[in-house]
Structure formats: structure tokens, C-alpha cells
């Protein structure tokens, strides 16, 4: 049965099975390790929050003040007053949305070509594509800028969005690996039933690749959201700036306004956080739902 083969109900190595005597110890150990890792991940984050609400005098106290006193939330509204932060948010969301659409269209099609179709030259093309991941970023920066300025795209969102519609080597690689794990019998069965190549892609491969597509969305979102260098190079008009570029307003040449920088960074982290919260359901067990339906 098709559904059984790929069904993957939520389960894991850490505590989905009924608790036996030795399982309890596994769980104690598991939770302990989990807490340590979580604490290590969270500590710098706590420092961000506390820095955002500290008074300037407390910022560099020795020994450092763990608990801010007094707690001052005025930095958060100030972020919006000092710079057009709301505007930056809207700009970034537009760019991010276009990038996600572009990547979803291009990456899935190209990955499908590499993963499921056989053709002469496939390995060579794939290696050429992978080799682009090996080029130091700064090597391509200047030629890219020259290309886009010849096209007259400087100070527009085109250099930040159009390339997404031609794919990204890393995401193609990722989705291809995922698509290769889908059994080939499914394609063959569909072809026998008279499905076209595009039909197989649209009806079978795409729904079964849902966790990988969620990854494409998450990676594109975070990558574009945090991209600093490209907006810096291609945008001149402060009204068109993105969030990560806008944060640089708080880092002066001589001194950094730590309150506002941390408050702004925290605000900038909220949209990705919401995305993670929504995406985590989709990332897990996406296959089982679709597989059972079909």
C-alpha cells in the first residue's frame, strides 16, 4: 500500500514510546541534556533582552548586572521614532515574499529535473551547479554589481528579488536530495495511469516534498530577512531600506546605541519566530497526512 510505505506518524527517539522502567532514565537524561542545550542557546538571547531594557549606566557595570534595574521599555517605541522602522518592516516583507515565491517556483522545478529525470549531461550540470556554492562570496560581488548596474537595476528591488526566480544552488541541492528519497514506483504507477510528466510533478512529487518545501520557505525567509550586504550595495534610498540595513543606523562609527540596537534586533526577530512557530507543524509529519489522503 502506497500510504503505508510512506506514512510517518509523529514519533521519535525521545519519549514517544510508552514509559518502561529504563525509559524513565532515558527521559531524565534526555530532559537534562535538553535543558543544558536550551540554556546555552538562550543565554545570549537573555542578554539581548536585558541589554535592551537596561539603563545606559548599567550597561557596562563590573560585575555585569544580570537583572536590569530599573527596567526601561522605552527603547522599543524609540526604535520606531528614531528611524522609519515600520517602513523597513513593510519593505522587507515585500522582498521576502517575492523571494519565497521565486524560490518555490524555480527550486522545485529544477530539483525535480535533477532528482527524477535521466538525461545525458546530468551529472556534469549538477556538478557545475554545486561548484557555484564553492565560490567565495566576495569574488562574485563586484562583477554582480557591474552586471546589475548595466541593467539599470540599482536602487530598485530587482537585484534582490529577480535572482530568486532562477533558483538557488543550495536549495536545489537540498530539495533534490529529498525528492530522490521518494520511491520511483510512484512515478511509474502514475505514468501507467496516463499522468504527464508535469502531472507527476504537481500531483505526486510536490505534495510528498512538503517538509522540504517548508525548509525552502524557512531558509529563504531567514536568509532574505537577515541579508545585509546585498541591500547595502543595491539600495541608496533610505525609504527603501530593509530591517537588517535599518539596524545599522544604531551602530554609529564611534559608538553603538546598544539599547536601540538590541531592541530593534529583538523586534526584527519576531517575524522569523512566528514563522518558525507556524512552520514547525508543517515540517513534522507532513508526509503522513498527504500520503494517507492519496
Amino acid at each position, binding site marked *: 500500500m502506497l500510504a*503505508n510505505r510512506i*506514512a*510517518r*506518524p509523529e*514519533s*521519535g527517539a*525521545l519519549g514517544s514510546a510508552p514509559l518502561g522502567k529504563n525509559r524513565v532514565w532515558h527521559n531524565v537524561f534526555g*530532559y537534562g541534556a*535538553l535543558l543544558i*542545550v*536550551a540554556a546555552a*542557546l538562550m543565554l*545570549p*538571547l537573555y*542578554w539581548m533582552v536585558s*541589554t535592551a531594557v537596561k539603563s545606559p549606566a548599567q550597561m*557596562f*557595570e*563590573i*560585575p*555585569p548586572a544580570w537583572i536590569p534595574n530599573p527596567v526601561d521599555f522605552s527603547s522599543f517605541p524609540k526604535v520606531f521614532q528614531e528611524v522609519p522602522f515600520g517602513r523597513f518592516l513593510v519593505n522587507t516583507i515585500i522582498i521576502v515574499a517575492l523571494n519565497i515565491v521565486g524560490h518555490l517556483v*524555480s527550486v522545485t522545478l529544477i530539483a525535480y*529535473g*535533477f532528482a527524477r*529525470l535521466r*538525461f545525458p549531461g*546530468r551529472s556534469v*550540470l*549538477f556538478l*557545475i*551547479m554545486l561548484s*557555484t*556554492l564553492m*565560490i*567565495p*562570496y*566576495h*569574488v562574485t560581488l563586484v*562583477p554582480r554589481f557591474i*552586471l546589475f548596474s548595466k*541593467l*539599470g537595476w540599482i536602487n530598485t528591488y530587482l537585484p534582490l528579488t529577480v535572482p530568486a526566480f*532562477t*533558483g538557488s544552488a543550495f536549495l536545489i541541492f537540498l530539495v533534490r*536530495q*529529498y525528492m*530522490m*528519497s521518494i520511491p520511483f514506483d510512484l512515478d511509474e504507477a502514475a505514468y501507467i495511469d496516463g499522468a504527464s510528466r508535469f502531472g507527476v510533478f504537481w500531483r505526486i512529487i510536490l505534495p510528498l516534498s512538503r*517538509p522540504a518545501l517548508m525548509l525552502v520557505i524557512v*531558509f529563504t525567509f*531567514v536568509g532574505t530577512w*537577515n541579508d*545585509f550586504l546585498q541591500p547595502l550595495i543595491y539600495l541608496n534610498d533610505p525609504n527603501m531600506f530593509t530591517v*537588517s540595513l535599518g539596524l545599522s543606523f544604531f551602530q554609529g562609527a564611534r559608538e553603538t546605541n546598544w539599547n536601540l540596537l538590541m531592541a530593534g*534586533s529583538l523586534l526584527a*526577530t519576531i517575524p522569523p519566530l512566528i514563522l*518558525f512557530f507556524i512552520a*514547525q507543524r508543517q*515540517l513534522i*509529519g507532513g508526509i503522513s497526512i498527504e500520503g494517507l489522503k492519496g
Partner: protein
Amino acid sequence: MDYSSTARARTSISTQVYLIAGLMLLLGVGALWLFVTGITDALMHRAAGADFGAVLLRYLHVNGIILPLIELGLGLYLIRLAARFLRRDLRAAMWVRQLLLWGVVASTVFVVQALGSALATQMAATEAYMIPVIGVILALTLTYAYLWIGSNIEKFEGQETLAESSARFAWNLLVPTLLVLVFVALRPLEKTFIASLTDQRFAAGADAEVNFVGFDNYAKLLGVRWDLVQCTTDDTGACAVDESGATVFPRARDVLDETYRDLRYREISTWLTLGGTKLIFSARDTNFIGSIGNTLMFTVVSVTIELILGIFIAMVINSKFPGRGLMRAAMLVPWAIPTVVSAKLWTVILRDNSSGILNAGINLIQRTLGLPEESIAWLARPETQIIAMIAIDVWKTTPFMALILLAGLQTIPADIYEAADVDGANRITQFLRLTIPLLRPTIAVALVFRTLDAVRVFDVFQVVLAQKQYSMATYNYYTLTNSQQLGYASAVGVVIFVIILLFTVAYVRILGVSAE
């Protein structure tokens, strides 16, 4: 049956076949012509007395490396295709039709772009609109040829197999990406390689002379040597010893052969001391050799830790436990903070004295244990600098690793764990025998991608360490911006590329991320 109309139809069909084959032939010969003129031009300059380096540089600047290869390949392919098309080969016809379609797309894009720039520059109407008009005519002609082949496909002989049509379909999907890859990735790489063979300077005037220097930049960059140095002898012929009892050695440049001094070798480290002899390691560019060491150390350690932690986190967020939704989202947060901000944050955490919270934490533990309080200058000492870089990278990138591995866990069927439970395999056996082998393809992706990224590491090093210690990428950046040596910096870029290539080849061999 009306014989005359059939006859007329046949002649008109032949005409169109000849026209389309002629077009393909023309394009093929044109491509070959470009290839040949590039070479003859270079040969003529050589005959006129220019030296070899200058001729080669000129050829590379005009033609590059990729373009002549494309011209040659495309030319031969098109001529062969035209011949097969004339023989009414159905498979050739399908490919010609495909090429025509791409031609239509390309000329449409061209027209849109030309119209856009014509409107922008507001040139005199007739001149500005000539180019778009030619483009429109071209697009219409190609569209007609495309439609004609489509409606007369039965006039061609042979049959296309399923494999062949799927090959055509795949090329359709890939061509746009490949074109972009050539322009935004391979072409810059090629330009970098060409620049690395010269002594070009960055932001020099247009009239500045550029010389072909062959592989001199690489020789300087990668020049290393090992030498045996004998100790300084005292009057008795035994090794001299200083106050602390250590054997005294002369400076390497004073005792070794002249090339050591002339090529400006400098000692990096002593590898071995045996009695009165020591083995020293020297390099011409000690900063770059050091940056290779730093980057490799950073890459190996951080990727290993990230992989282990990543698997752990992926398995945790894949399982059911109370509060897992929040945990899953929270674990990914460090990755969502812009690198520039998190790097700045870490400079505060790692500050030298006890105003840095890491040192404050260490002091707190020392005080509780009754030990003397000691702060570590994390960012001032070379050996802790790299540890700090690794810590920041692990903190920031582990969630990313976990996400990739999480997607891989979804492809493992649940019933094999149930079967393993029935067979009485414990969790550790299940993990080692089931999870890890089945996760291998995903681990390969994660490792390849993280390694490629780590070898290119730039922003953390740049923000936190600046010029205290280099990674290969920051060294590349500083040679370009500070010393303006474009040729030399380009050679650095090419060396980074080659090192990453070696990593990738190793991974492909070991982990079997085959292209098949």
C-alpha cells in the same frame, strides 16, 4: 485526392525545412567563426612581435575561457543538428523546435529590456526603437518556425523514446538556471582567475599598466619550506645555552641559503627539536598560511560540533513532549538573529575583564569553589580567538543544521522503529543501526553545505577579530581593500575555491552524494 495541392504542399514544406536548417547552420557557423577569429587575432599579435604573456592576457581579456568553449561546443552541435534536421530526423526536429522556443523567449526578454532602456534614455525615437523592432521581427520569425515544426511534425521520420523526451524536458527546466549561473557565478570566477595571473591593482586608473605574471602570485601565496637549522655553537663546539637553559639557535635568514632571504620567507613555527638541530616551517606569506590553518581548524571543529548537536536537537524537536511547539521555535531563534548583531553581542559576552558575562560566570564559579579569580582575555589570545569564533558559529548555526536533519528524519518510515521495538532493540542500538544509516543522505547534504559555508567564513571573523587573526575570506578582503592588490587577492579567491573543491570531492567520494 488533388495531386497538385499535395505537390505544392511538399515543395513548400521543403522550403521551410531548408530555411530552418539554414538558420541553424548559420548560427552554428557564426559561433565557430567567433571561436576561430579569437584565435587568429591572438596569433596575428604574436606574429607582430608581442610577447607570449601579453598575447595570452589579451586573448583572455577579450574572450575569456568559458565563452570560447561555449562557442566551439554550440557551433559543432548546431551544425550537426542542422544536418540531421535536413535528413528529416524527428529527434533533431524536436530539438530544433526546443531551441527555437528558447530563441523566442530570449528575444522577447531582449525586446523588453531594449524598450525599457529606450524609454529611460529618451533617445531620438528612430534610433532607440530600431533595436526593439529588430528583436520583434526576430521573435516573430522564430515563433513562426516553432509553430511550423509543431504542426508539420508528422513529416519527420523516426520516433523519440521516452528517455529522450524526458531529457528534453529536463533541459527545459535547467536552461534558465544554467544561463544565470554562467553570468553570476562562473563568469566572475573566470575573471578572478584571469586577474590572478596579473599584477593588477584595485581601483587603479584606467591607463595603469597590467602585466602578465604567470603563476607568480600563487608561488608567493603558497610558498612554504621546511629547513633544518643547527644550533649556535660556543667555543667548545657544543651548543650554546641561554640563561634559562634553552638551546640557542641562529635566525633562519642568517644561516640558510640566499633564496630564503630573497623570497622573504619567514619562520612560522618549529616542528621538531632534536639535540642541536631543529626543523622549522617557513612561508612567504605567513598571514595567508596562518589563515588556512585557522579556517581549517574552524571548519573541522565547528562543523563536527554542529553535526552532533544538530542531530540531537533534530531528534528532540521531532519527538512528542509537553511544550514542544515552543521549544522547537525557540531553538531556532539564534539563527534568526542577523549575524552582524549576534557577532556584536558576542564581543560583549567575551569581553576581557569581568564586564564580559562569560568571564563573570567563570569568576562566579571560581569564587564558589574557593579558587583564585582569573579572567580570560578570550579575544586577545590567538588560541582562544579561534575557540571564540567556533563558539559563536556553533551557537548561531546549529539550529540551521538541525532543521536540515529534521527534514531528513521525516523520510524514515515509522514502522521500522516499531519493528525494532518488537525485536527488543534498545534506543541506542536503534539510533546507531537505523537512524544514522537512514539519515546518511541528509547528513551528507548538511555536511557538504555547512563545510562549504564554513570554509568561506567571513562576517564573524570580520566583525569580531578584524585584522587580529584572519580567515581565508577576511584575508582575501583585506588584501583587496587595504593593500589594493587585485591580482594577488584574486589568487587568494582562487585558492579558496580550490580548497573548497577538494572538500567537496572528498565528501562526494566518502559519503556518496553521487550526481546519479
